[in-house]
C-alpha cells in the first residue's frame, strides 16, 4: 500500500534557507544541505527546495545548492522557483533534482507542462499552485510571481488543466494559511482532489499532526511542512509518529 508522505520544504535564497509568513518577512534558517540531511535522517520522505530569490542572476547559486543537496540526499528532491523553460528544468535535473516544480510560467502557458512531460516524463513535472481565497468566498484565485500577482485562473479549474496538460503532481499552497500554523485549507484540497487524479501535496499552514492528518483525509497524498521544522517547533520524526498514531499510513523506518 502506498504510504502518505511528509515533505520537508526549504525556501532557499542565496544558498541559505529562509522562511516567511504569508510569503513575506523572510528569516534566515540555515544551510540547505545540513538541514536536508537532518530531515532525511529524521525520516523525511522527500525534500522540496524553492528558490525564492528567483532572479536571473541568482539562478547559478540555486544550481550550486541543488548539487550540494544531491551529494548528500538519498531521498527524492524537488526543485522549483523561477523555472520558465525546458532548459531551466533540464539544468535543475542535470544538477540533481528528481522533479521540477513550475509555477508562474505554466500558469501563463500551460502547454509548457506538456513539453516538459514529453521531454522528461510527467513524473518529473510538478505544478505549484499558490491559491488565495477570493474575498467574496467564491473560491480561490491562482497567484503567481511568489504570490505578488493575481492571475485570471480559478485554482480548481487550473488544477484540472495542469493535470491534463502533463503535470504529474500538484503542490497546492494556501497563501492565506502559509506560515500561520492555522492548518491547511482542507476545503481547497478537497475541491482540487475531486477535480484531478494525480497526487496532490498539501502546503501552507500545517503545524500539528492533527492538521496534517486533516489534509490527508481531504485527499492529499503528501503534506508539506517548513516553518515548524526550521523553528524547532517539532521534528519530522515527531510529526510522522503523530500521524501514524492518528491512523495515517506512514513510512516509519529511519535512514541508517
Amino acid at each position, binding site marked *: *500500500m*502506498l*504510504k*502518505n*508522505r511528509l515533505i520537508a520544504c526549504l525556501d532557499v535564497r542565496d544558498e541559505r534557507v529562509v522562511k516567511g509568513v504569508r510569503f513575506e518577512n523572510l528569516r534566515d534558517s540555515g544551510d540547505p544541505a545540513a538541514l536536508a540531511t537532518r530531515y*532525511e535522517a529524521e525520516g523525511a*520522505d*522527500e525534500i522540496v527546495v524553492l528558490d525564492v530569490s528567483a532572479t536571473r542572476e541568482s539562478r547559478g547559486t540555486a544550481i550550486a545548492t541543488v548539487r550540494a543537496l*544531491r*551529494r548528500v*540526499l*538519498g*531521498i*527524492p*528532491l524537488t526543485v522549483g522557483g523561477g523555472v520558465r523553460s525546458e532548459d531551466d528544468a533540464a539544468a535543475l*535535473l*542535470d*544538477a*540533481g*533534482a*528528481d*522533479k521540477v516544480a513550475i509555477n508562474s510560467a505554466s500558469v501563463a502557458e500551460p502547454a509548457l507542462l506538456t513539453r516538459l512531460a*514529453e*521531454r*522528461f*516524463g*510527467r*513524473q*518529473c513535472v510538478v505544478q505549484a499552485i499558490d491559491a488565495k481565497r477570493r474575498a467574496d468566498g467564491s473560491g480561490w484565485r491562482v497567484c503567481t510571481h511568489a504570490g505578488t500577482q493575481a492571475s485570471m485562473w480559478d485554482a480548481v479549474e487550473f488544477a484540472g488543466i495542469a493535470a491534463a496538460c502533463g503535470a*504529474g*503532481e500538484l503542490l497546492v499552497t494556501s497563501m492565506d494559511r502559509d506560515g500561520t500554523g492555522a492548518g491547511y485549507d482542507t476545503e481547497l484540497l478537497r475541491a482540487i482532489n475531486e477535480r484531478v*487524479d*494525480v*497526487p496532490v501535496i498539501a502546503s501552507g499552514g500545517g503545524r500539528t499532526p492533527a492538521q496534517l492528518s486533516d489534509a490527508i483525509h481531504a485527499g492529499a*497524498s*503528501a503534506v508539506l511542512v517548513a516553518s515548524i521544522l526550521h523553528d524547532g517547533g517539532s521534528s519530522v520524526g515527531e510529526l510522522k509518529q503523530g500521524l501514524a498514531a492518528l491512523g495515517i499510513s506512514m*513510512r516509519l*523506518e*529511519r*535512514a*541508517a
Partner: protein
Amino acid sequence: MLITVVETNAANLASVQAAFERLGCDIRTTSDPATVREARAVVLPGVGAFGPAMRLLRERGIDIALRERMAASRPTLGICLGMQLMLDSSEESNGVPGLGVVAGVARRFTGGVRVPQMGWNEVRARDAAWPWSVRCGDAYFANSYRLAWESGACAGWSVMTSEYGGAFVAAMAKSDGGILACQFHPELSGAFGRSLLAGWLEVARC
C-alpha cells in the same frame, strides 16, 4: 569499483551517480555498445518514455549489447523505465518491442488509483530465492506503468511485489543477484535502497 551507466539522453543521472558515489564507486556514462557489453557492472537508468528510450538503444546497437551481457549473466541493474525496457513491450509506446529479456507487457495502473504512483510503497520478496537478506522495506516509486503480478510471471526470476490497484512486480532478480531490475528507485529509497544497491555491488564485485 567502476559503474558504467548507459546514456539514454532523457534520463537524469545525477541521483544514480550520487547514490553510487556514496557507496564508494566511480561512475562513467557510455553509449558505446562494446563498452555496454563488456563492462563489469552496468546500470540501465530510468527516466523518460519507453518508445524514445528503446529507439535510442536500438539505433546505437545497445539493445543487442544489453541482451548479450544479460545472457552471459554479467552484473546489470535496470531502474524504473530500465526495468520496463527489459520486458516485451509497454502500453506507453504500443508497437515498440522491448529487450524481451523477461516475458510481459508494462501496462498503465488500473483500479482507481492516482496515477502516477508517486511515493513510498511497501515491497516484499515473494519467494525464498530472493538473493539478499533484506526481504522487505519501503521503496520510492514514480511510475505510471508497471508489470502486473500474476502467478507464473517472471519465470526464472525471483520477485518482489507491491500493491497499488492490485499486485505488481516491484523488483526482479536472478537468484545469484547479478541481474537486478527495480520498478522503484533504489537510489532514492533511503536506507532500504542503499542496502539493496550495496547488495548488488557485492555480487558485481565478485
